[in-house]
């Protein structure tokens, strides 16, 4: 008798447990569904239509938006600018971040915390504020940079640092490096501090000190963290928006347009929501691809 009733009470226990887990998961999954997963489906669906910000009629255009995007010069400029920012940021932020971290880890002792705090500080300032500060510093009329450049006898760019289409994207790249190199430095410093110090002593006995120790010991031992840093920078490079929106708005003449700002421009200024969705899908594919790569490398590590 009891043999038949007891298994039921066991599954009763399990069912109660399952219900608890489901209840604990629901709020998070609900939010993710509404603001991440459903929008992903909508962005793909919407990319097949022509529709405006407020209009109620959606015209099915198939892959028309994609054809339009791939034939659009500005789309390619935006993609190229994203790539410039990605590669440039890897060189500047990860590169200098590594150097700064290495020096702070083993090169200097006095003032280490102070310098780390200062270099990291821009990370807690919003990109909007960073953009505005630099906008003023680089301003052709009142900016202190021009005053300094003129003061040492050089000529600043005639159209302004951000107004000259041939250099503006590089200036933006520099501002981004100003803001984020400290973050990379802290990330890499955490990795360096996990490297046992005695391998440096062993390396010194083997004749590897200074630069050679950096090359043969330091870099290989933080390989995984460097990969993570490069991936974070890459993802960040494709997501860049605030800084460009504030400093140049994508101009002059679309010279600093990136996918993020172009999506915003098309959707909310021009009102080409379907076209913006098509570009979003491209950005989405890049982001998911990079995310997958990140997962794969972190699994391996």
């Amino acid at each position, binding site marked *: 008798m009891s043999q038949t009733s007891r298994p039921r009470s066991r599954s009763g226990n399990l069912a109660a447990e399952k219900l608890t887990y489901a209840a604990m998961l629901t*709020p998070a999954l609900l939010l993710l569904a509404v*603001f*991440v*997963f459903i*929008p992903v489906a909508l962005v793909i669906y919407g990319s097949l239509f022509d529709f405006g910000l407020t209009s109620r009629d959606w015209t099915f255009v198939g892959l028309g938006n994609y054809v339009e995007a791939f034939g659009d010069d500005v789309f390619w400029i935006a993609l190229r600018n994203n790539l410039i920012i990605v590669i440039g940021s890897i060189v500047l932020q990860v590169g200098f971040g590594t150097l700064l971290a290495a020096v702070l880890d083993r090169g200097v002792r006095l003032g280490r915390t102070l310098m780390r705090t200062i270099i990291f500080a821009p990370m807690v300032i919003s*990109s909007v504020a960073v953009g505005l500060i630099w906008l003023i510093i680089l301003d052709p009329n009142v900016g202190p940079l021009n005053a300094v450049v003129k003061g040492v006898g050089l000529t600043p760019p005639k159209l302004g640092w951000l107004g000259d289409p041939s250099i503006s994207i590089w200036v933006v790249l520099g501002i981004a490096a100003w803001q984020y190199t400290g973050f990379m430095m802290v990330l890499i410093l955490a990795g360096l501090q996990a490297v046992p110090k005695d391998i440096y002593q062993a390396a010194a006995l083997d004749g590897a000190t200074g630069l050679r120790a950096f090359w043969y010991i330091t870099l290989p031992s933080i390989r995984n963290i460097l990969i993570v840093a490069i991936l974070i920078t890459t993802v960040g490079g494709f*997501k860049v928006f605030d800084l460009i929106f504030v400093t140049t708005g994508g101009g002059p003449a679309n010279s600093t347009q990136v996918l993020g700002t172009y*999506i*915003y421009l098309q959707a909310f200024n021009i009102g080409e929501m379907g076209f913006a969705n098509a570009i979003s899908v491209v950005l989405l594919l890049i982001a998911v691809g990079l995310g997958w790569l990140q997962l794969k490398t972190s699994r391996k590590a």
Partner: protein
Amino acid sequence: MEQRRFKATSLVLYGFTGLWSLMVLIPIAYMIMAAFKTKRSMFIDPIGWPDALNWESFERAWGVGVGGFMINSVLVTFLSVVVIVIFSGMAAYALTRMPGRSGQIIYLLIVAGFAIPVQAVLVPVFQIMSGAGFLNSRLALVLPYAAYGIPFTVILFYAFFLDFPRELEEAARLDGCTRFQTFLRVILPLSGPAIASAAIFQSVFIWNEFILALLILTKPAFKTLPVGILELQGEFTSDWPAVMAGLTLATLPLLLIFVLAQKYFVRSLAGLGK
């Protein structure tokens, strides 16, 4: 000889980090300095010191509503972080304790959500928010903020809960706690470091969030600091000292908190590499 070489190397290394620190410091210092200058002295002598400690720019900036923006930011950031920590904590705990493989599968789904940038789903998120009548609602803005903060926080808590000593939970079960009571009375009180780390990271992120706030909050009264200070630029077309004063008001509080608690900030953000 060795000694001298050592000194030279050390000088170069100090020079390098010192120069970078200076490069970071100067724009921030300039922001504060320029806030005290007058419009006139800005034009005549951009790099000169202010003639006097001149608080008028701060008054003008405050007049635009920096105080209101700040309250909005505090409100939105606080609520979002609370929601993120609670929802992520519950979800991560359930995921680590669920029997079978379903926990791992849902975890992967959430990790996938981490890869989706808001820029790529801007149009549908705007449609959803405006469709639900959530435009210009600070409380509603908390929902997408929470959604985008959850994946990273779940990942952080997941690792923490996996390492949590099982014996404590078993002791709690023997003491009569249900799963949820165990979570509430034993796990949460002992998750201080993980919660602090998550809260700091999300606070910095949400305090500075721009693009969603730009889309959702269009009425000045509801704006958060990042969109609010952009208003300064439009308001004072050539009043750069007022813009700088506004920026100083907007950035200094978090900068000060950061300097005071930099150890925790650094630990929190460095955890991203793991």
